């Protein structure tokens, strides 16, 4: 898969797809999308890049091991789950800010939960695929 077209395309596809995945993530509460699909799209972005430029290149862009994302995602999701408990509400109760934020829209604990899901999905996919690529 060592073609110039694929290589140059992947350089532009990576940021575009990542942006798109975030878009999908954010619109999830109102329109088709969400953390799971968003995470899958983001992983595909990285995988395309690694297929074109080699794993090392992608790793150097990512800077850290994808396993870190597992931890980060679980922490974010857990924290969004327990945050209502600090103000005496039950676990996982949705909390929302009253006014929407420009571009993003409504912000609430469910959004952070979805971000957690997004991160975990990216972490899982990349960990599995990178590991397999390396060992084969």
């Amino acid at each position, binding site marked *: 898969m060592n073609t110039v077209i694929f290589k140059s395309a992947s350089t532009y596809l990576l940021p575009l797809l990542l942006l798109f995945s975030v878009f*999908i993530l954010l619109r*999830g*509460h*109102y*329109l*088709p*999308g*969400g*953390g*799971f*699909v968003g995470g*899958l*799209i983001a*992983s*595909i972005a990285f*995988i395309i890049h690694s*297929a074109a430029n080699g794993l090392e290149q992608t790793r150097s862009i990512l800077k850290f091991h994808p*396993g870190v994302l*597992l931890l980060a*995602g*679980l922490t974010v*999701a*857990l924290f969004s*789950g327990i945050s209502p408990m600090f103000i005496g509400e039950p*676990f*996982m109760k*949705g909390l*929302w800010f009253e006014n929407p934020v420009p571009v993003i829209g*409504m912000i*609430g604990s*469910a959004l952070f*939960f*979805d971000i*957690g*899901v997004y991160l*975990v*999905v990216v*972490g*899982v*996919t990349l*960990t*599995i*695929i990178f*590991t*397999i*690529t*390396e*060992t*084969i």
Partner: protein
Amino acid sequence: MLIAVLSGFILALSLVITGKWIKGKGAPLVGLFPLALFGYFVSFFPAIMKGESLTFTYEWIPSLGVNLSFHLDGLSLLFCLLITGIGALVFFYTAPYLKEHIYLDRFFGYLSMFMGSMLGLVLSDNIITLFVFWELTSISSFFLIGFNNESEESRRSAMMALSMTGIGGLFLLASMIVLGTVGGSYEISTLLGSADMIKEHENYLWIIGLLFIGAFTKSAQFPFHFWLPDAMKAPTPVSTYLHSATMVKAGIYLLARFTPMLGETVYWNGTLIIIGSITMVYAAIHAVFRLDLKGILAYSTISALGILVFLIGLGTDQALLAAAVFILVHALYKATLFLITGIIDHETGTRDVSKLSGLNKVMLPVGIAGILAAISNAGIPPSFGFVGKDLIYEATLGFETLIWVLSGVALLTNICLMYAGFQAGIKPFTGQLPKAYEKVHLPSPLMWVPPLLLGSLGMVFGLMPFLIDKSLIQAVVNAMIRGGALDVELKLWHGFNLVLLLSGITLAAGFLLYYFLKPSALLEAKTNRWEKLSPKSLTKGLGGIFSGISKLWTGFFQNGYLRYYLIFALTFLTFILAYKLFKETELYINFNDLTGITFYEVAAMVIIAFAVLFTVLTKSRLAAVASLGVVGYSICLVFLFYSAPDLAMTQFSIDTLTVILFVLVIYNLPKYLKLSNQISRVRDGIMSVIFGALISILTLEVLNEPVLKETSQFYAENAYTLAKGKNVVNVILVDFRGTDTFVEITVLAIAALGVYSLLKLQLKSTEKE
């Protein structure tokens, strides 16, 4: 109260941090903690004395009826005092006994965990909580028995104890669930009210049968007794604490606790009397022929537990009183004997009773403790043991039937136990001191004061029974009797009667036996001839057969070939689906309900059909994978036609990733190989067609089933009002069922870690098996 119960666990956790200090200077101070708890429980004396009982309730899982409710009455108080009192002495004793052991801190951690579980067990009013603490005692005792984890034997006996008590625990859980369902409550105090109803219920036999197995395994009753002598591999403080005073008595506690609720039926009393008498005689005779001090004590403990089961089985007020007293008597003298055994072992390095004698010349206080304990064990006046033994004889003589059989059994047991007690408590300290032990010296007072204290208490309570009869024993007995209001007065001297005669016979026979029968290896060997028929060997044989079968089973089903796993799973599914579909449902397709076929759908179907054909026929793996991807994408299209964009998006990404994964794996395989032969291909083809057809039929049949719309309607209506979202699918995922999603992403993370560690694990060739 909650803090008192949990403090054991908190201390165990805190040792992670303070471990270093504990191992050094802090060791003797850890004992202050159970001592403080002992003081705390003593403070309840006035209330219990007045016949009151205290309840403390904390909600835990209210939706399942599981509460942390604690109930303190006479019976629990007696056990709490034993647990914390003997616990404190054992903690003090451990400090010098395991001095400079590298895992001393762990040992204290396990001990305090165990203490907390025991306290929770005897205080729980909720039967589910009771079961949880019951299991915790099994688990912490596993760590304690296997404390010398470098010795294979000690590991094996820990496993044995865990499996025996663990199996018992499962039976107990089953019993508790049936009991809770029958009685309509999981609180013992509420269940007591419906005792008559429970006893007449058709499931009554299940309840007590399962309960008995739980209690008998824990309290080492015949034929489950064999784990206890094996558990003696543990350091002596453990044997003292777990296997004489507390854990093995948990089964007794259970029986005593449920006597007012489940007792007084032929099944209850009959079973307990039979099992109790078999255990007490069998173990007492075994105890006579042991040479290892700990072996003697183990068997005499089993025998004593048998006596307790037997007494609870008799079930008369007299017998229950005898049981209450005997619990205390036995705990006092048996803990003493274990502690001095530990000292002897620690100082001389042997526990062989035939080699030990004359040690009183070098360790007098220990000898005094031993003799006091032996006296109480034998029931020589004026010890507390004498009071206890009189009560036992009174109970057997006062029973309705079979008086002479029951008394004879008790007499035989007591004679053997007296002999065993003399072997353990007197034999090592009298006679000639062997040259080898002349240099033996007295250990630290932390070691010899506890047994001396316990031994003397056995004397004090005997001389002054009024100290505890009204204050403690009365409350204990009344907790075991339904609506109990028995007035207890313990006396040392009852005048000349039949009971005294039986006591006299016991003593005379015991002395004669001690005088004539000297311990010898020959005699011990003779008893071992029957080992082949013992429950232990039989269970082991059964275990061997079991593991053999499981090996065959695993070898057949888990053979490491992915295709066979798939074949097994699919065949099973096919059979079960086909059975359900053709046997129990009427197959029909309602063509009227189906919508018309559109042009796009036909197009998608044609693409799918061609892709599938190509996948099957192609000779290149990569092409097969790619065409599978085409199938996936076409299915996405179908999802889109039926307005499920979420599903389509996800399926689309997943398919992409699957193809990438396949390519990654397959890319490096050799280009072309025909691996499977014609026959297996045909077999796989037939299986796939059948399975696919079944799934299609199933899908069509599902349409005929009435669908519950309430759930989906609820989500559709409330997605925006409750969760401020318009995409119902996503709202369900992140809000309504958020906890599920959280568990799912955790599972995903674990799977990723699993793949990572499996592929990255580079075993050295020596580590591979």
